[in-house]
């Protein structure tokens, strides 16, 4: 059963750094696991926590959030704003018992193609080990008569 499990991972990435970085991974012909669906947004500042929630709601087993390194934001400070919100949101998720091992926050620049591949591989292996996010998926049917 676990052997056939292929995790579904949603990645929210910023347009300027991580998306470009992921692009570089491809053009550099670096192989990495294909479990990640990449969703590009202009800036990490746009990645509302509700998007992460929605990803789990729609069946993701893991989520990656990634953007420009601090001080490198295309819009100067979007990633700083995002970082504050992630800090609180991660705490809150943990307090409510949501599995924070399933969310990975990271900085990947446009030059770090190899880093992106490594990140995706690590996260995918990790989620594969954790198995499907059954707890959250069970919510969708609980409480309906």
């Amino acid at each position, binding site marked *: 059963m676990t052997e056939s499990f292929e995790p579904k991972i949603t990645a929210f990435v910023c347009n300027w750094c991580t998306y470009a970085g992921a692009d570089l991974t491809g053009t550099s012909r670096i192989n990495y696991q294909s479990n990640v669906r990449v969703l590009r947004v202009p800036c990490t500042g746009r990645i509302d926590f509700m998007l992460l929630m929605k990803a789990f709601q*729609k*069946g993701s087993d893991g989520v990656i959030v990634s953007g420009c390194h601090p001080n490198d934001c295309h819009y100067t400070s979007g990633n700083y704003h995002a970082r504050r919100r992630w800090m609180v949101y991660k705490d809150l998720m943990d307090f409510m018992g949501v599995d924070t091992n399933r969310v990975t926050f990271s900085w990947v620049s446009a030059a770090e193609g190899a880093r992106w591949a490594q990140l995706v591989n690590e996260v995918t292996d990790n989620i594969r080990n954790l198995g499907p996010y059954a707890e959250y998926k069970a919510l969708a049917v609980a*409480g*309906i*008569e």
Partner: protein
Amino acid sequence: MADTFKLTHENLDGLFAVLRKDGRRVLAPVDADGRTELNDVEKPGQVSKSYIQTIMSAKDVVFPKVERLLSYTTEPGSVELHDAEPHALPTVLFGVRPCEAKAFGALDAVFNWDYRDKFFNARLEKMAVIGVSCTKADDACFCTSVGGGPADTKGSDILLTPIDGGYLAEVLTDKGKAIQALAPQLFTPGNGVDKAMIAAKLEQAFDQPALTAKLPGMFENKLWEGQSLRCIGCGACAYVCPTCVCFDIQEEADPKQGQRLRCWDSCGFSMFTLHASGHNPRETQSARWRQRIYHKFSTYPERYQMLGCVGCGKCTRACPVDMNLREHLVEAANA
């Protein structure tokens, strides 16, 4: 009239066992962290000893807070519909108060006055009510003002009234008789106790027929605005109410399949009547508060020849800002 028996405490133990053996769950008021909830119980010993009312009403047994009406699967150019079957469990409601027992009639009126609602009906059919008369009332209660009473039989299949050593048992309906028939020996001959002596005394607070008669002329009265000023517009009153029946239909779907769910809703929410154009027939909280009163005390009598309120006072107890319904009705009746 109803057949009257005695049901001793020991025999009630036996009755619970028999009901469960018959495949029915028994839901009864249970104390939980200072709240009284309606929970699945095995023995009468688990039932709360001191409750006046449960916080939530028992309506979710027949009208759950979320229930599936239908589901479907979709593919480009085609849709396959799947009817939903209510998952109705044989249920005995034990220990609900006469006011709440009566409330099922008010729900039935809406669900079946014209089109028949199969979901409600399937659940109602599998439910029986063993009510227990009230021996005390609190400041929120006003059943006697709305045609009920602490030992009123309406809505119960069997009504129990506490007496020494057990209960006076009135077997009132065919469903009640069917329960009795499961273990007739548990029901011993009654001893002619006058239940009116035991039941709580609750003075009538206002003249309801007079209130109903004058409401149509009071629509524009400033009273509603004054009363509703402290209302915060939440749905607590409607959601604990045993007769509030307003609902929403919500769709939940992904690209290949979906379902329609019926969910509780409340006329107190500002979005409830909001039109697509942005126009809202009930724009202010006072208009929504007025709707709540009128629906129960004017619309219901006119359409269904009964009241949409049983005087249980749950709304008053649940309200975060203590909107006391009895008090407001008295004020309206005296206006």
